[in-house]
């Protein structure tokens, strides 16, 4: 993908690369907006939203923030910890399900 020697004079890539990524970000944003515009619902909506979100985030981090050209030591040090947030997400999903059930049971809004 990239030459190993780019770091000598800082990150140096052709402008065209940035314009292409810019264009893709526009396309992906339009797609995620169209998900809402055409009122897609259910699991397909969640899947599409998350897919476009991850693709956009990946493009920004990899190309705009130059992570694709950094050494693996920095890549893993920065990118692995946020993934662990997913554990936190799992914990909070259990917790909020429990709160929800408790509210339905004790505040009489359940079936």
């Amino acid at each position, binding site marked *: 993908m990239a030459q190993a020697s780019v770091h000598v004079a800082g990150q*140096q890539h052709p402008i065209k690369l940035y314009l292409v990524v*810019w264009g893709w970000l526009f396309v992906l944003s339009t797609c995620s907006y169209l*998900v809402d515009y055409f009122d897609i619902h259910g699991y397909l909506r969640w899947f599409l939203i998350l897919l476009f*979100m991850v693709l956009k*985030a990946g493009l920004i981090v990899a190309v705009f923030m130059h992570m694709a050209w950094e*050494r693996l030591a920095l890549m893993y040090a920065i990118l692995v*910890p946020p993934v662990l947030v997913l554990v936190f997400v799992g914990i909070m999903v259990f917790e909020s399900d429990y709160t*929800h059930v408790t509210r339905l049971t004790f505040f009489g809004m359940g079936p």
Partner: protein
Amino acid sequence: MAEPALTNTGEALTRPAGWQQIAADWSSDQRAFKNVSWGKVMMWIFLLSDTFIFSCFLLSYMTVRMSTTVPWPNPSEVFALTIGGKSIPLILIAIMTFILISSSGTMAMAVNFGYRRDRARTAALMLATAAFGATFVGMQAFEWTKLITEGVRPWGNPWGAVQFGSSFFMITGFHGTHVTIGVIFLIIMARKVWRGDFDQERRGFFTSRKGNYEVVEIMGLYWHFVDLVWVFIFALFYLW
């Protein structure tokens, strides 16, 4: 004192690739991030900590939205605008998204021209980025005003779950603050670039350190991060 003749410096060694490279870098002498300056590393570590802050906001939003027994207001309708007699869902947020993406594009090119030592273009692109950012904050102020006049408060709103207001103001407010700080720093950095501080190695007013064009890239990292956070807010708060 004469410089000692170093025939074999660390840089000359061939380093392993893949996992072995990571292990070698982390266990090596003096520094773990071999070719990354301390400024860039510190910005990355700051951004990592900021990631956790925004993660906590989005997680608490997820928690209140999942645990409420009252229906959540439909963002598609709440953020709709009536243009030419037609109600278009989320149109303002979509425009804000495109503006922020464009600002990221101009910032990426500013970094590129900075390394080519093209002062005029770097400064102009940074100012364009700042202008896009200011437009974004302006549109956010418009959105807040609209919602507040419609009766949205941190403790309640006319459409459903009361937690909607507090989540909305907290998440977008914190993001807007980041954009505002970014705009201010972009203008300061653009002035430095324009004046040629990094060509003349002029010492900074606060730290009296000499700067170089890598500062533009570090500024860019912050700005792209602000765009990155918006990607997640757009998907998880506005579209979900």
